[in-house]
Each structure stands twice: as structure tokens, then as C-alpha cells.
């Protein structure tokens, strides 16, 4: 079968690899009908995520048709159309049973690697480095899905592939980011980064009752798409950006701020250039310019919600600002399983059509081009790949 494989920094290739087979009785094999490149795949593309190996199959946003099930997967049968969460969860441990499926105790076979770096390990992830399990990903014609009795949900015929696909990651991720803001009546939410997760955060904030959403980016196409979702656009490169943001919230600052940027933030201010320099010489692993801005801008007693991915050490983190303003910080990988059914219902009842975010539709064979377009082209917001 064909699969998108990682071979190094800015080097992904479509290769012929053996088809997957069932490895445990809780596995299923899915024939991929649609898959996507995630913003977090670009972190792999840039080589900033450790423990990747040449030949690793990429991709954690995928859906498809069930072709084979293990003996302990009673919920699925051959022919079912399903969408699969990017995090792998056993459903039995303390964390899974409490809804924190991204923190599953049992799904990362390489937990000892993550334990060395993070103290303890979260869930295994599809196609996202060996530290997170080394699972073959979904940018392939077929995928093995472990714990298939817990993860995949069936998609009704009334929902198309393009509408269902993003339930695997970015829609729940944007939604959890907004939910973490604990939105109250009248709240103004600011969203840093209008990539796919930011776009879903904007729309989710409105679904959860936000009064106003301010979308922050420097790419016109992204700001325009956020405006279509009802947000007020704000370019962070504007000279008086911080003042504008304050004034747009009656001088209070946003009630909650969402950092949908993560560890590779762009910026032109002094601290952003300092981050670039330190990251270049590996004194720092993550650039946190957007997060710093969010913490400074947030109103007193507000919440900073972080769906953007961070991997390691950060420098010049304004903890004193967060402390003195009594901020709440919430973050973490998305517990996708918890959101699948409620969000699928929102899609089914036409309250949101997640396909709005797609800008580029390519064949799986053209994945390498898809990665570089997504990396470099301003107009490209979301790439989907059809095997």
C-alpha cells in the first residue's frame, strides 16, 4: 500500500509499504477514505519533535471504512464508516474512565521514553514519534487502529467524509480549547493563531456562548476565514497591536485567551527574535511569543487556554504576570473520545460544517507537495489527502 513516510527535516516521501495486520484482539484495520495534514505534522516536518525514525508513517487525522476487526471489537463490523481519534486510549485506566483519554496509562508502549523526559507518559498517538508510541499513522491507504472498541465512532450517511474527518483532531481540539475558557455570558475571547485549530476555536467559542471573538494572526486569508466565522480580525504586526486589543475589550483585556500557535510561534518583537536565536543554538526548545502576548493581554482573573503544542523548555515565561493577575492556565492534548459524539451531533444537526476549513484537496500521492504548500503558502489553511 502507499503511505506517507518521514525521512528527516523537510523530507517526507510517499512509499510502498506492507499492508497492516491485526496485532491484538482489540485492533481493527481501516481502509482510509480521507486523511489530512495537521499543523502539528509541520512540527515533525520541521524536525523539532524528538524520537522520529526514517520510514515512520505519518498522519493522525483520518477516517475510513472498517475492513477487519479483532475478536474483542464488538462495536464495529466490516464495512462500517468511522472516524478515529488521534490519541489512542484503552478505555479502562483511571484517566480513560474519567474522560482524560489523551492521558491514557496503557496505550504508549514506549512510555519509558516519555517518562524520562516528562516524568510520566500520556497516551500513544498515531504517527507522532516513538516517544508517543511509534504507531504507524493514518496518511496511508490502510491503518491499524489499536483499542478499536474504544476509539472509532460510526459516521451517519448524512455526514460526508469532509464534514466528519476533522472530528479526529482539530474540531475537538478547538472545542476543548474554548471549553477550557469556561465562557460566561458577555465574555470576549481572543484567539492567537488562525490556523485550523484557531478557526475551530473561534467557531466553538461562539457555540459556547461568547459575546465576541477576536482572531489574531498576520495572514489575511486566515483572518478572512475567521471573519466569516463571526470573529473580529486583528493583525499582530500592527504597530499598536496591544493597545488595539485592549481598546477592543473596553480596556479590560480579553476574558480568556487561546494560544492556538504552540511551540513554533512567529513574531517580530525583541523577545521573538531572542527566541529564534536561542532555538537555533538549541538553548531553548520552544518559541513562546504568542503565549507571552496572551498572558500579558488577558484580563485579571481570566483564563489562558493552550491547545497549541509545546514539547520542552521555554524561556522568559512571564509567570509573575500570570500570578499577579490571578490567571488560570489550562492546557494539554485533546481528550478526543469525550467530544466525538456530542460534536458529531452538532455536525449532523447542521450547526457547524467543519469542511469550511479545507483549502487544498490533493491525492495521497501528492502528499510531499501538500506538506511544503501547507508550510509555505499563506493561502493554504487545511490540506486533505485522498488515497
Amino acid at each position, binding site marked *: 500500500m502507499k503511505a506517507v513516510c518521514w525521512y528527516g527535516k523537510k523530507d517526507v516521501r510517499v512509499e510502498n509499504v506492507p499492508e497492516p495486520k491485526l496485532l491484538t484482539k482489540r485492533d481493527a484495520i481501516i481502509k482510509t477514505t480521507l486523511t489530512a495534514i495537521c499543523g502539528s505534522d509541520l512540527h515533525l516536518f520541521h524536525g523539532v519533535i524528538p524520537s522520529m525514525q526514517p520510514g515512520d508513517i505519518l498522519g493522525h487525522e483520518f477516517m475510513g471504512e472498517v475492513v477487519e476487526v479483532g475478536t474483542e471489537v464488538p462495536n464495529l463490523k466490516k464495512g462500517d464508516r468511522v472516524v478515529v481519534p488521534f490519541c489512542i486510549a484503552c478505555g*479502562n485506566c483511571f484517566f480513560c474512565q474519567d474522560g482524560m483519554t489523551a492521558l491514557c496509562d*496503557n496505550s504508549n*508502549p514506549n512510555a519509558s521514553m516519555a517518562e524520562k523526559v516528562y516524568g510520566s507518559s500520556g497516551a500513544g498517538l498515531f504517527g507522532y514519534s516513538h516517544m508517543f508510541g511509534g504507531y504507524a499513522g493514518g496518511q496511508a491507504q490502510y491503518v491499524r487502529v489499536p483499542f478499536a472498541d474504544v476509539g472509532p465512532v460510526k459516521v451517519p450517511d448524512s455526514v460526508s467524509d469532509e464534514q466528519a474527518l476533522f472530528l479526529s483532531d482539530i474540531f475537538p481540539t478547538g472545542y476543548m480549547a474554548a471549553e477550557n475558557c469556561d465562557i460566561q455570558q458577555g465574555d470576549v475571547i481572543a484567539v492567537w493563531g488562525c490556523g485550523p485549530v484557531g478557526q475551530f476555536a473561534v467557531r466553538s467559542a461562539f457555540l459556547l456562548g461568547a459575546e465576541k471573538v477576536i482572531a489574531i494572526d498576520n495572514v489575511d486569508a486566515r483572518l478572512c476565514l475567521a471573519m466569516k466565522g463571526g470573529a473580529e480580525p486583528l493583525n499582530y504586526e500592527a504597530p499598536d497591536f496591544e493597545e488595539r486589543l485592549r481598546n477592543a475589550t473596553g480596556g479590560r483585556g480579553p476574558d480568556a485567551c487561546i494560544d492556538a500557535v504552540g511551540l513554533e510561534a512567529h513574531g517580530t518583537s525583541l523577545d521573538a527574535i531572542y527566541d529564534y536565536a536561542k532555538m537555533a543554538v538549541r538553548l531553548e526548545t520552544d518559541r513562546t511569543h504568542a503565549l507571552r502576548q496572551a498572558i500579558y493581554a488577558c484580563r485579571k482573573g481570566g483564563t489562558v487556554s493552550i491547545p497549541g503544542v509545546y514539547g520542552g523548555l521555554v524561556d522568559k515565561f512571564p509567570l509573575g504576570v500570570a500570578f499577579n493577575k490571578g490567571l488560570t492556565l489550562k492546557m494539554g492534548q485533546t481528550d478526543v473520545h469525550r467530544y466525538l459524539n456530542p460534536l458529531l451531533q452538532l455536525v449532523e444537526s447542521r450547526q457547524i460544517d467543519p469542511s469550511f476549513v479545507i483549502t487544498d484537496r490533493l491525492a495521497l500521492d501528492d502528499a510531499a507537495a501538500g506538506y511544503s504548500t501547507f508550510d509555505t503558502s499563506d493561502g493554504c489553511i487545511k490540506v486533505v489527502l485522498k488515497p
Partner: protein
Amino acid sequence: MEIIRHKHQLPNVGKVERTASVAAGVLLIGKGLRNKGWTGTAMALLGAEFLRRGITGNCHSYQALGINTADAEKRAAENGGDSVSVPHGSGIRIDEAITINRSRADVYSFWRDLANIAEFMEYVESVRILGDTDNRMTRWSAKGPGGKCLEWDAEIINEKENELIAWRTLDAAEVANAGSVHFKDGPAGRGTEISLEILYSPPGGSLGAFAAKLFGDDPAARIHSDLKRIKARLEAGVLAGTDGQSKGPKVQGEETAERQIHVDAVSKASEESFPASDAPGFTH
């Protein structure tokens, strides 16, 4: 993991060695005092340490490595008739705890069937129940350092249903060990807390274990992984894994054990970041 040390410096050097130590000490001090300069001083100081070691019978390096030649002599004098598996003041101790999201009765009965446990301990090949009346005697075989096959017999010396299992190896075991596992309810119904304590004399003595640890074959980490597998088996029923999954073709000249390289890389990055409280996000 810790190598057993004592606050009070008990004698840990045998009589023959102590006499030799005193003689070497006197000789070195004598030579040292005749020589002028740094070498003379160093020799005299070393001599003084040998003298102290001989007179007190306590050797700091032996203590650091968990070696005790005094006890070995005593046991030899008693015709090898020791009543404990791991003599007092020697050996290596491992303490590990884990919480399993199952009832105490489930976890206990799984553990009490020692054949189950062997299946999830990476280096244990098999455990055979020796067929006594209450299944207390077992024969273990394991892969030792360097792939050497090791065998020993063990007996359960204390058990309280759903609370405790304690064991020790029988006389002349190649890997003398003793230990206990305690089972306790987690708070507010949060599964079962297991505390495992193992005391063992590894093959090749403490020096062998020390060398094994230096070369990365860390028994505490191994036991930790074993416990995580038992937890996964009890909670999820299956073990997560990727052996046998698909992968892109290898690049020419990359036939080496990549996995180990990457494990080392993460470990190295982690060491370099110490004592920062945060984790590094790079390895190259």
C-alpha cells in the same frame, strides 16, 4: 534502586584481608615518610587509610558497592548454613509502586498465580510450581547478564490474602533474593496500590550489579516496566505494541539498531536538562 549502606560502620572486611591491610599500611607509611614531596605525602596518606581499614575492619569502597567479605568469612566458618537469602548488610534493594485500576482481590489473585507474573517479567523465562500442598514452592529460570541462564528455587514465606505476599530463595540460589509485595486499596475506590520490595544478591556479587547499572542494564527500570505491563494486562486485557506494523523502507546504511539510538538520545537530552524541572524537546 539502592545499594544497601549502613549509618554505623560495621566491619565489612574479613580477617585475612584486615591483616594484609595493616601490613600494607605500615609499609606505605614507612616508604612515604622516607620520600620527600607530593608522592611521599600521597603514599603516607594511602598507608594511613590502609591502616585504618585494617584496624577498624571497615572499607568505604566495599560499603559503597555493598560488598562484605567479613560476613562471607563468618558464613564459611558456620559451614555455609545461613538462614537468610540475602545476608544482612549486603545486596541491592529495589522499591517500586504502581496503582492498578482493578479491585484488590483481582490484583491479588492474579499475582498469587506466580506463573502469571513470570509472563510479564521481561527477563524471567518461566516459573514452575513445584507441586507442594499450598503452592508455596516455585522454580524460576531467567536470563542473566550476558544472556546467561540462571535458575533458583523460591518459597513463599508469608501471605495474607489480598494484603501481602513475601518470598525468599532457598539455600545456594544463584540469584539469592527476598522480597514482598503489599496490596492496598487506592483512595476513594481508585484501584489497588501495589508496593513491591526486592532485595537481591546479583550473580557476580554487588560489583557485577554495579557494572550492569553502569552499562545501562538498570534492574529498577526493568522492574518498573514489568509492573507497567502487569498493569496494562489487568486493566486493558492486551498490551499496547507496534511489533509487526508497517514502516517505510530503510535508507541505505541505516541498518543499525535505530531504536536504541533514539532511546539513548532521549535519555541524553533528559540528563543534559537536569536539574531543570522542565523537559527538553530535542534530541539529535
